[in-house]
């Protein structure tokens, strides 16, 4: 008994001593006196508040510690089940099949894709055994099958092997990549350029590398799918202007500026995103006007030149040659190799070396394709006649097709990609509106849908156009419908046939092919009119 009280006494003694040391130590911490005074006074004023604050702190710590992935469980929508109920629910759950089988139409679509046997080029052989004139494949400058490029590629193969076996950051950057980046930058007259290993993945990585949540992007309503995906990933605020309509663009820029002034928000990054030549219809941007507006409203311009690079300009530099602006583009289409690039100032380029997702997390381009592209640039530089031949061929084809009643061509006269849409007699279906819309009916910049969307019957037109394609193929000309992922594009694009003109064909051959296309159109569409 006695001993126990003694030990208790000792214990209390120890407690009080440790309390005093704790207290003195606490007061040694700078600022602690203030804290103690605050707690004391607040406790005096309102004892309930101390309790509240303690609970608050505990709650904050709890939320912090809680694993984020299980956040839903505490949500108010969470329903508590016991194990047996969960087992039942699991048993009951029946997922949809991962993929729906193809419908007969879709099967036909897949079966109708032509297969080239042997090399691609202006006159490839198809799996049916037929040799055809090729107006479907991208080969603007006719570099496919070029012997110099082949020789350079073989030499590179022997020196570098095929794959680069690593992302650029981890020993995947080879001297040939640095060389091609330099070549592209020199060719386009920019400070620097960066290579991506696929054209499609270029722009969809470039946009989110710069545009973050809260930034403002003003985009054309007709931008291609890759850009749409880039916009989606970026999570920026997107405002839309009417397709290739500079008045609408100016109006949208004005409204964004007004909005900003009203809200007095901080200065955010602002971008205009559009294409040089539009993949969807071959229309060409009015670059001088774009540049003027961009400067006036202090926007940055992201220009996708996937189609225009290697197909317009005196030596194929694209619109930038015509108007001198940095851009991103496609090595695949323009130089008959594979991959894409983004050219601009070195700040812009170096930023992407760390922030361009598909640059950082993907292997560098195979060396031989890189060298093939460098060689391609070389050839384009030294042979301006390639581009003049291409332009001549484009003019020859347009001269024939422009005059056909049942064809509407939205493409720019200089575009090597020519889209052919069905022109219905005027009263039946409203014609496509490329002329300036009336000032009164402005589209809503918040929505991607234009004010007066053109009306058309997708299924019917696709089917007719496929008939045209088949008919042309039977006559020895390979062309293709412009394929779209229906339902996934932000706005439905009017069905069209897409011709890709090449410098590898002679003017005569182009005219002959155009006449075949023309008669196929007349045969299929003409009889329905």
């Amino acid at each position, binding site marked *: 008994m006695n001993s126990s009280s003694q030990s208790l006494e000792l214990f209390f003694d120890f407690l009080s001593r440790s309390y005093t040391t704790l207290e003195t130590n606490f007061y040694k911490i700078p600022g602690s006196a203030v804290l103690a005074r605050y707690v004391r006074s607040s406790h005096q004023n309102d004892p309930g508040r101390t309790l509240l604050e303690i609970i608050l702190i505990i709650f904050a710590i709890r939320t912090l510690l809680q694993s984020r992935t299980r956040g839903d469980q505490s949500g108010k929508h969470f329903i508590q089940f016991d194990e047996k109920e969960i087992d039942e629910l699991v048993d009951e759950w029946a997922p949809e099949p991962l993929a729906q089988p193809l419908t007969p139409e879709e099967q036909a679509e897949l079966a109708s894709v032509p297969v080239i046997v042997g090399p691609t080029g202006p006159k490839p052989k198809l799996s049916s055994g037929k040799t055809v004139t090729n107006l479907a494949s991208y080969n603007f400058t006719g570099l496919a099958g070029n012997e110099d490029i082949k020789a350079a590629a073989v030499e590179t*193969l022997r020196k570098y092997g095929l794959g680069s076996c690593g992302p650029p950051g*981890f020993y995947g950057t080879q001297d040939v990549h640095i060389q091609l980046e330099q070549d592209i930058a020199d060719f386009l007259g920019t400070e620097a350029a960066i290579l991506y290993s696929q054209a499609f993945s270029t722009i969809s990585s470039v946009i989110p590398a710069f545009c973050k949540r809260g930034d403002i992007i003003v985009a054309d309503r007709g931008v291609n799918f890759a850009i749409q995906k880039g916009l*989606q990933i970026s999570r920026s605020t997107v405002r839309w202007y009417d397709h290739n309509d500079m008045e609408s663009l100016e109006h949208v820029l004005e409204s964004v500026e007004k909005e900003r002034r009203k809200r007095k928000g901080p200065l955010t990054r602002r971008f205009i995103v559009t294409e040089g030549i539009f993949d969807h219809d071959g229309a060409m941007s009015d670059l001088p006007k774009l540049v003027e507006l961009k400067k006036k409203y202090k926007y940055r311009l992201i220009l996708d030149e996937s189609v225009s690079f290697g197909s317009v300009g005196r030596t194929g530099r694209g619109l930038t040659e015509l108007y001198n602006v940095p851009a991103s583009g496609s090595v695949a289409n323009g130089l008959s190799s594979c991959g894409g690039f983004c050219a601009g100032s070195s700040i812009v380029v170096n930023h992407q070396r760390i922030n361009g997702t598909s640059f950082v997390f993907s292997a560098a381009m195979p060396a031989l394709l890189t060298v093939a592209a460098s060689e391609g640039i070389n050839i384009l530089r030294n042979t301006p006649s390639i581009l003049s031949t291409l332009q001549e061929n484009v003019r020859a084809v347009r001269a024939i097709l422009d005059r056909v009643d049942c064809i509407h061509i939205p493409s720019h006269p200089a575009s090597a990609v020519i889209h052919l849409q069905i022109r219905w007699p005027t009263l039946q279906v409203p014609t496509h509106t490329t002329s300036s819309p009336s000032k009164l009916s402005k589209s809503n910049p918040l929505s991607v849908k234009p004010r007066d969307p053109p009306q058309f019957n997708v299924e019917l037109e696709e089917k007719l156009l496929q008939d045209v394609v088949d008919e042309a193929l039977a006559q020895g000309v390979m062309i293709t*419908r412009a*394929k779209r992922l229906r339902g996934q594009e932000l706005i439905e694009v009017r069905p069209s046939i897409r011709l890709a003109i090449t410098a590898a064909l002679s003017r005569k051959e182009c005219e002959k092919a155009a006449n075949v296309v023309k008669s196929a159109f007349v045969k299929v569409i003409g009889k329905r009119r």
Partner: protein
Amino acid sequence: MPSRPSPIALNPASPSQSIFKKKSSTAMSTAASYLSAVSEADARARKHGGTPASTPALSMSSSVTSSSEDTVLHDDGHLDFTDGLSFPRKPPTSEQVFTTVHAEFGHCANEDYRYTSQHRKGVPYKSIPEQDPPYYILLTTYLSYLLVICLGHLRDFVGKRFRAVNYRHLLPWNGYAPLNSDFDSFYTRRLKLRIDDCFSHPVTGVPGRTILLLDRYSPDYNKTMIPTGTRTRALNISSYNYLGFAQGSGPCADAVERCIERYGVASGGTRLQGGTLDLHLQAEALVARFLGTEDALISSMGFATNSTIIPALVSKGCLVISDELNHASIRFGVRLSGANVRMFKHNDMNALEDLLREVISQGQPKTHRPWKKILLIVEGLYSMEGTLANLPVIMELKKKYKFYLFIDEAHSIGALGPRGRGVTDYFGIDRRQVDILMGTFTKSFGAAGGYIAGSKTIIDRLRLQGHSGVYTEAMTPPVLTQVIASMVSIMGITLPAEKPSSPSLALLRSSENTPVIPESEVIPGTAPASALPSWMPLSPSMIDGSDGRMRLRRLAFNARYLNRGLRKLGFITYGNDDSPVVPLLLFHPGKMAVFSRMMRTRATPIVVVVVAYPATPLVTSRVRFCLSAAHTKEDVDEVLRACDEIGDLLDLKQASGERWPVEEIIKRAVELVHMPEIP
């Protein structure tokens, strides 16, 4: 260019010629050498006969190098005879025929240095238990980050006031917001820049067993890098070259050369719009056969395979369950798809099951409608961790919870499994039970691009609905050929019926002591010769699959050897013993740079990959080795010795457990590799 003669070239007769001579006197020892002799004679005859134009189908030419000069590299970089990089330290004996360039694909004839990568039946999968380092390591790691961050902010603070020009691109200027705010770029400018000499090092030549670094220096603390014009050959344990197919010579390169002559380099647009070649169909059929699935499709970039195909599989109303360490391309694809995403702790099967129970019972958020589909996405082999997806458990869970399974085999295809068929092969799981097998050709096959394999219904749907068919450029012919040739090397070829009647081909079977695989288990089987392009030159080692088998078995040995060797030295590593990706934990950010620089400046330079936050959690900075079949045992020895020295210097050996001195590890390598478990 002063090219000194190689020591081997000084030999009066080249090995293969000597073999030929020997063969004519003694009996044919192996079928392969017989064949090489035959085809050589054949090639010579053709050269003299002068009928080059049409090579007969299935000609077996040009694979066997006629002179040993081809097996060493004539580069104009400095030739060092002592580092063992360009030339083997021990010259080959007259028995040994090497047809590869030593600098690309090391000469290693010792059959003991082989192993089969396979999961032991009946043992649950587990990766090496992750060991935590002592607390002082963690503490000092945090402190060093703290220090660097404080210093960085201090420098920014001062710099912005006194040297504003340097900060102009980070501040609003002339009415433009900065392209890159100083906060966003802080990590890059103030942390990464300090050790930028360890990243993006430019190289040249074949990224094979060795690699040529283009030397550079920085006069201004890594802001600019200036090439010095010199080159250094270094041992390459960084490239994703698991099976060593990164080669500038050999059967695959020969096939690619033939292809370029025939096809050029362009494919001409998207698959559905005039860009489909016969080669695409052949390659796709071969991939399907390789994997034993009904069908497969090919896309021209591995990253895009994920980012363009996942959106076609799932959409709004679907759920994606994703391992927290999944690759950026998967996250990219999932974000585009619009599906809901939940993540679970890396490879934690209990967490996965809990999550599955929760999401299935709760249904979609707010509405509680049942999910349309649930797709589980995992990687076969995690490239930063070296861990494998725990497939045996996942398959169990799949039966019970009815989710769909998508395995990204970017790193595991070719690199794992007794037949190189990836993680399913490693665990012995039927590939048809997995809904989607995705993989890339960038790694094991030395090519580029990726594939998706599965049932015909799914693949056909993806051909039409995936973004890749309509919008992305098709794979180019040379890359397709590399894919075909390397894949065929692993598979072996069934020749048409009338062919094997020739005696040389009948000898093809049983040329190497292969693990006995019952016929029923050769699921994917060999490639029928009729499925290959008729112009493709085939080599005997490709036909009988001996080349591929050798590669698989060498890789398996190297992987296990380095994994276990490092652990026996006392390092903390992650992952699985059979993983060719070996992460070694460094913890301190500062040690990354030192480690990388010390490895690079050794007598035998070694290039390594160091990774840190944000690619890994903050404290677990690491160096990552990627082994290859091209490495010889001596190369792995070299790495172990280097790690041993540097590890002592940097105080990296923090793991508990029994340790061996490095020379003992090297001596007992074969024993170490064959131990079922190491204590």
